[in-house]
């Protein structure tokens, strides 16, 4: 799956991963911090994502606005993402321009300004981002399903944060969060592309090696207790369409159940695309598509398994046809789950899951940006070997293992059933 990867650690604790790829005149640089929504408590939900926004608001060396201009001028692209376990920043640049990206990341690891006026301006941008999400019924539903699935664990809240906190988080809260978590020892620098490893490593040492290390914040986990019974939530809102979301307790990425679960997901709802970039494939031969969509109860069904640090969710989202109902869909869906628990998937279904995963990983390998993504992303919940050995591990999965994991995980008492029910509001004329 990959060429040689250099793995090293600087004295200040920064983990470095370098991978030479000589297929295009590009280099993609990623910095991953081990901080996300799981590091937040009520009162500061959404703060990791907001800090990510502030990282684009300037340092003394690169005042606000100058970087957007500089990166674009060089023909590069950059962006950042925050999720439950991590915050990531990337730049993909023409190979001879990567210096700018490295300098920027080294600089904003320690020198971001968090100017109070910029904080206030960004507050309304982030509130606007949340309001845009609130316009989507599936966001509203998923938010409630998460809250029901995680009573104790911080996966409880969405990455964007609760509106109440977005109104009250202060500049000092943000700056404190930044200073606590943005440390070389809490980060991974991953660079992939057309460079010579020894030259790149030298430059990385020069730019990042002198950044002072600091105490790595301790993460005190609050594990979610065993769920004592099925939980149901209903969200009412505008629209004409009902949605049904089922969330089962899923394994963390390093759990032995994860790979058999990926095969189960492939058979039930179609292969999940674990890549950040690039499209997936259709799921019209999956069991739930056949049952629900060909059965004319639903317009679509998608499933999702995500690689996370702590046990997360295996979720299934169904768009219900207007003449059907969430209740009818749930009955049919449960019949199909029952079949999954009754008898092992076929050898053909396992073979298909493997081939689909192989194809999706092959497609992913074509993009330098995606290669850089995997180099760091995999370190957030496991290590790069997790990615490198994934297909091997997948190809060893047996139908019996899938049956075992289904019986363990697809249990009604360990799930949340969420329904979005339209209140029939029509567009005001």
């Amino acid at each position: 799956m990959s060429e040689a990867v250099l793995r090293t650690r600087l004295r200040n604790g920064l983990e470095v991963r370098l991978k030479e790829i000589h297929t295009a005149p590009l280099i993609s640089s990623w910095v991953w911090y081990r901080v996300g929504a799981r590091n937040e408590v009520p009162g500061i939900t959404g703060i990791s994502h907001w800090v990510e926004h502030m990282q684009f608001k300037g340092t003394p060396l690169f005042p606000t606005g100058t970087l957007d201009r500089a990166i674009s001028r060089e023909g590069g692209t950059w962006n950042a993402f925050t999720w439950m376990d991590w915050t990531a920043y990337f730049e993909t640049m023409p190979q001879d321009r990567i210096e700018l990206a490295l300098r920027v990341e080294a600089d904003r690891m320690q020198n971001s300004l968090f100017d109070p006026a910029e904080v206030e301006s960004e507050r309304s941008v982030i509130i606007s981002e949340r309001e845009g999400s609130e316009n989507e019924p599936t966001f509203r539903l998923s938010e409630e399903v998460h809250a029901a699935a995680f009573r104790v664990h911080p996966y409880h809240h969405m990455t964007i944060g609760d509106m109440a906190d977005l109104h009250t988080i202060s500049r000092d809260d943000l700056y404190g969060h930044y200073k606590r978590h943005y440390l070389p020892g809490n980060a991974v620098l991953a660079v992939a592309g057309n460079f010579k490893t020894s030259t790149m490593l030298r430059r990385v040492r020069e730019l990042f090696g002198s950044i002072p290390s600091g105490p790595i914040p301790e993460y005190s986990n609050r594990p979610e207790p065993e769920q004592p019974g099925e939980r149901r939530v209903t969200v009412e809102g505008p629209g004409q369409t009902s949605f049904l979301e089922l969330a089962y307790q899923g394994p963390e990425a390093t759990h032995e159940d994860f790979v058999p679960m990926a095969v189960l997901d492939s058979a039930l709802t179609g292969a999940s695309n674990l890549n950040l970039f690039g499209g997936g494939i259709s799921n019209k031969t999956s069991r739930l598509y056949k049952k629900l969509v060909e059965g004319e109860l639903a317009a679509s069904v998608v499933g999702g398994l995500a690689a996370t640090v702590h046990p997360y969710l295996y979720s299934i989202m169904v768009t219900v046809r207007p003449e059907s109902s969430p209740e009818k869909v749930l009955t049919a869906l449960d019949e199909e789950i029952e079949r999954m628990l009754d008898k092992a998937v076929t050898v053909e279904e396992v073979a298909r899951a493997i081939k689909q995963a192989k194809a999706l990983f092959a497609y992913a390998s074509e993009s330098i940006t995606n290669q850089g993504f995997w180099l760091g992303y995999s370190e957030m919940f496991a290590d790069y070997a997790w990615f490198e050995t994934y297909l091997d591990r997948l190809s060893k999965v047996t139908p019996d293992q899938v049956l075992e994991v289904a019986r363990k995980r697809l249990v009604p008492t360990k799930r949340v059933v969420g329904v979005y029910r339209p209140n029939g509001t029509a567009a005001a004329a």
Partner: protein
Amino acid sequence: MGQLPRLDIKTLPGPETILRRELGNGITFLARENFSSPSVVVSGYLRAGSLQEEPDMAGLASMTAASLMRGTQKRKFGQIYESIESIGARLNFSASKHSISFSAKALAEDLGVLLDLLHEVLLTPTFPKAQVDRLRAEMLTGLGIRDQETSARADLAFNELIYKGHPYAIPTEGTKGTVAQLTATNVRSFHRKYFRPAGMVICIVGGVKARKAANAVSTRFSSWKANGKAPDLSVPSVKPPRGLKRVRVGLEGKSQADLVMGTAGPSRSDPDFLLAALANNILGRFGMFGRIGDVVREQAGLAYYAYSTLAGGDGPGPWQVVAGVNPSNLEQAIELIRGELTKIIKEPPDEDELGDNKANFIGRLPLQLESNEGVAGAIVNAERHSLGIDYFQKYPDLVARVTRDEILRVAQRFIDPDNLAIASAGPPVAGGKPAGRKPGKKKGAGRRPKARGSKT
């Protein structure tokens, strides 16, 4: 002004690396090899589209495109999808005003499977009634969702304002009213009348030999009988709006308002298109969404997204500014955007700003052409708009030659801040008069929202 990036022209797609052939029945074949990739992409289009629908059958071209994979003379729906999903491949069709497009991807070893299927579904679809009925119900569900989306509703309202009486006013995917009437018979008839090889383009990029790919296409498609010339799918020009034409669509229960404002822009083949694309980049794309992003998002903090987009395409597609704002900030956002539209027609960009944007246009080529999809899309686009297969090699010079006065001229030709369509959709405004027609997942959160693309 700094120096512009210098690209190695030989690395860009051009006559040396693109194989182009015309089959006797009017199909144009294009290919470019990329053996560093394990995959292959097949993309292209037929000259048939929603312009050929009757207005009361809006959505028929889309339904026909979506129905192609629902059954053929040889195979049923389940067998068709089994053949591609079992190998991790994909094949999708979509309709637009001027074309039916296809895009497919597979491991390079499976090119034959893709081409067999492409041929089979284009030439021998059966459109089984039960399948088309099911698809219609799915489309109606989709339209029900669309009708509650603020961004889609603002866009639809914008098109009605700008393209009143023009075919572009009609949504390609139709409305609940029109789609509900469509039948398998309509779909079969549309396919029989309009699907023909003349004008079809098929492009293959990836880890396969170009000549081998050419033979694979020729073997399968050269016997498709010509059945006449490619149709004329040209559209009338559009008169600019007079005054500020305003529509507000009220949607109960929404938090955010979406705003779409602008006018009709140039087609891709308009000689001014490249200038307009550069002007658009300055206006609402460069860096964090250009001047508009700077004023509306970065300075005023009014929106998560505020950017401009230029459609290009086969006709006078829209030149729009799009923003998502809190309803109480809507009027302020409109005025700030109008201010930027005024600025861009009053004075040319300075040398630094123009230089930055030129550098961006040239420097980003390697990134845009990194993937097989990117290369195939660019080659198909060049063929479609008669830009020539040496277009990408000429492109850096074309960009470098653009002057400040040309940017001013093209902005003045298309943009008039006092004559615009302004459509918004969001929560009904208290005391206001919401107006408008009544038709029928991302990972985590991030700094930069996904903007709709603008072509260069």
